[in-house]
């Protein structure tokens, strides 16, 4: 989070300052990618890029603080995720047995897997095991830094439902991490 200097950074970015926009992007994009890697793992990078295109298109018209900024960016991204899911649902599914061996992904070696376990990707993978609403609420609260009311508006639920989903998700996440037997 940028904090108190957010308004100045946003104004400079609107005026065309590349360094200001870079600061905004570096602050927002990692959280955005972590969010997208749970909601749409296969198209996270593409959706993130598309989110920035849409954001830049309407940047001059944005008004608000840092909380509103993040809510706006993540709302844009969430709509793109929904579009991507609709697009994916229209595509015919291919069975794994029908995929040629050359096209199958090659598994990473043990060293990489060990390193990944202690990385953020492992945490994201654990969050991805949660029910969708719980995972999304936890990511929006923790990664995006939004409060309960903002998350409720974003996902279209009441603040009480968001709070309950977050707590249940954290308890479930504790169980998943305990079962994995690893310390992140």
């Amino acid at each position, binding site marked *: 989070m940028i904090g108190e200097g957010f308004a100045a950074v946003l104004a400079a*970015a*609107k*005026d*065309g*300052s*590349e360094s200001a*926009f*870079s600061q905004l*992007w*570096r602050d927002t*994009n*990692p959280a955005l*990618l*972590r969010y997208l890697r749970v909601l749409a793992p296969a198209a996270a*990078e593409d959706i*993130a*890029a598309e989110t*920035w*295109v849409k954001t*830049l*298109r309407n*940047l*001059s018209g944005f008004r608000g603080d840092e909380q509103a900024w993040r809510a706006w960016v993540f709302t844009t991204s969430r709509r793109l995720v929904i579009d991507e899911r609709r697009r994916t649902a229209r595509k015919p599914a291919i069975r794994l047995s029908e995929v040629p061996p050359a096209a199958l992904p090659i598994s990473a070696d043990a060293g990489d897997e060990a390193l990944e376990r*202690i*990385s*953020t990707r*492992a*945490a*994201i993978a*654990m*969050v991805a095991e949660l029910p969708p609403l719980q995972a999304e609420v*936890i*990511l929006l*609260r*923790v*990664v995006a830094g939004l409060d309960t009311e903002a998350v409720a508006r974003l996902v279209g639920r009441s603040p009480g439902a968001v*709070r309950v989903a*977050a*707590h249940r998700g*954290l*308890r479930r*996440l*504790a*169980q*998943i*991490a*305990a079962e994995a037997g690893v*310390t*992140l």
Partner: protein
Amino acid sequence: MPNFPWLGRQDASAIEDAALAAMLSGPEVPVDIAAGLQPAADVLAALRARPSGDELAGEAFAMAEFRNRVGVPDRVRRTRPRRRPALLTSLMSAKVAVAAAAVAITIGGVATAAYAGALPAPAQRLAHDVIGAPAEHGVSRSSGRASDAQRFVRGRPSHHHFGWHCWAPRKSGKPMPHPSWTPKPHPSWTPKPHPSWTPSPHPSWTPKPHPSWTPSPHPSCTPAPHPSGTPKPHPSWTPKPHPSGTPGKYRHHHRRHHRYPGHGPGPHPTGSPSPLPSPTPDPQPSGQG
């Protein structure tokens, strides 16, 4: 003191909810966090970790997009001055278009008025010379009437597209229009040219005068030239209306000769084809001014 185990579970649940809320709100993990929630706290800490290299890999693309859409203030500044000339040009072109339309309407109106013979005598004369409009309809204006009469007296009958316009002199030799004559055009006359009329001469027309045509006016008109050949009015003539007020002869005469032979239904007085009127200057009798 009784021991209520459910009260203890309720307290534990309340503490757990507070711990969960604290875990979600910030990176600081509460001290009194339940042991069972520690793995979840570790996961959240990993989610809040500093960005890795792959998460910042798309910065070049984002910056390029930023330059294309927002980060080009110089281009924005450049486009503003360009808009003003464009606006100015459009305004100027609009003014030019309005002026052109006004000129076209004015010219069209003047031309229509000229063909209708509604212009003042000098303007009508100019229109006659320039665009071939009917000559000033001398009988339709009091001033024109006088000038035609004067021309007649000078031995130069007024001539326009409808043929020789004769002002028949009375027995006294004074060509005067009847007082009851009204200055409206001949009923058969319309502002537009006769359908059979074309700006080009009649095919049978030759530049030389008709054999039956003589430099003198029509015989019925008897506009005898002045003996001296000079185009001054007859001394005895004065351009005042006739006092007797018998317009029949004049009106009939005027109507008969107003129609040009070959245009109207009536035959040519001489029974032979005669030259059609043309916008070009007609041959004038020599010695008649």
